[in-house]
């Protein structure tokens, strides 16, 4: 029944996933049973070089991280696009080459636009 649901090559990956998960969970749970549990307030304060933290740690953080994530999504999609192209390059011939040169040219224009706009600057 399982075979019908899943190509047999992928069954080991599913099994491996559960074994790795079990390894993690079992180790933590086993550790929980044997390790000392002796906590008090001072021990539980977040590390701050011995000073009591005054505010919540989760404050606003620079927008640049968000910008990097946006750029990443754009370029990552394009990267994933290149994989099937690379695999079938031999069968597709000149058509694939010209298409990809056009695609990458447009991408480069966008890349330099982002660069000139300062999206890649960090300060």
């Amino acid at each position, binding site marked *: 029944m399982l075979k019908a649901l899943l190509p047999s090559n992928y069954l080991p990956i599913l099994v491996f996933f559960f074994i790795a998960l079990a390894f993690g969970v079992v180790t933590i749970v086993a550790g929980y049973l044997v390790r000392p549990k002796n906590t008090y307030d001072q021990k539980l304060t977040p590390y701050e070089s011995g000073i009591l933290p005054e505010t919540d740690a989760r404050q606003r953080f620079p927008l640049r991280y968000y910008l990097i994530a946006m750029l990443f999504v754009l370029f990552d999609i394009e990267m994933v696009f290149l994989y099937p192209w690379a695999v079938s390059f031999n069968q597709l011939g000149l058509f694939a080459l010209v298409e990809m040169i056009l695609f*990458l040219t447009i991408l480069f224009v966008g890349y330099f636009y982002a660069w000139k706009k300062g999206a890649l600057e960090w300060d």
Partner: protein
Amino acid sequence: MDLIIQIVVIVVHIAVVLGVVLTHVAYLTYAERKILSDMQDRLGPMEVGPHGLLQPLADGLKLFFKEDIIPAGANKIIFSAAPILVLVPALIGFAVVPFGRDSFFIGSIEFTPYITDINIGLLYVLAFSSIGAYGILLGGWASNSKYALLGGLRSAAQVISYELPLGLALVGPVLLSGSLSMKTMTEAQGGGFWHWYVITQPVAFVIYMICAIAETNRLPFDMPEAESELVAGFFTEYSGMRFSFFFLAEYANMILVSCVAVVAFLGGWQAPLAALDFIPPIFWFLAKVYFLLFFYIWLRATVPRLRFDQLMAFGWKIMLPLALVNVLLTSIVKYFLN
């Protein structure tokens, strides 16, 4: 019945690979300490066992019995889940790595030198290695500590920035071999070291190695940890077993990226010369992986840490366009050579 046998065989494969990988992780920490201390003209761990050989076991036991602290104000569920979210992808990436050439048989049951061979092997490794970034980000955020939050954010930004050139560098070998299966890719590099893709794709290899170091947060790109400014980065608040999971995952990832580098660029289990074929393929595979791991440790002893803005500028302004141009040139050359 058939399915039960199949699953038993799979579990045996996984147990062997997991055992070998975890042993390597343990002794990689030992090797790192020993090599570093040798380069700095000191002895390194010497107390536990002869030449400190049992040190990794002692460290593991110590971490297992250490108190596990969840800081006040931390998000308990995310804080607990993050180390597992980092560890699992680092381990299951090994499912598609072909360690050797020949299967052996017990009766009619085949034992292959890899757990499975899927036709999108390389994509699978890349996909799961990016999931690890979530664990780092969530762990840093859930800790309720400034250092951990900053470390997590930096790490996420760094990992996604270097993921692009890393993926693009691997397009080169995919173009040349016409396959994403790691087994087919290894087989395509047979017949001597001049067939290895490191010879035809030297730029891609250098880009891959640099990005792999950044992906695994190793020196000189260990900005997320940067102990001189962020204490311990995203795992500042972690202790005991959960801390060791981040540690385990980092070293398992180091081994995994080395394995991928060996398969994609250094010919996998292929011997450098046909005359050396009598030495078992697994030996060549391990020798190449060990060399790359030594190279990692060597770098750590040699190169100082970069500044974060330098790191991001290097990734986006040099590595990314270089990797794109490499893909473009490779495809043009390949088309005209056909």
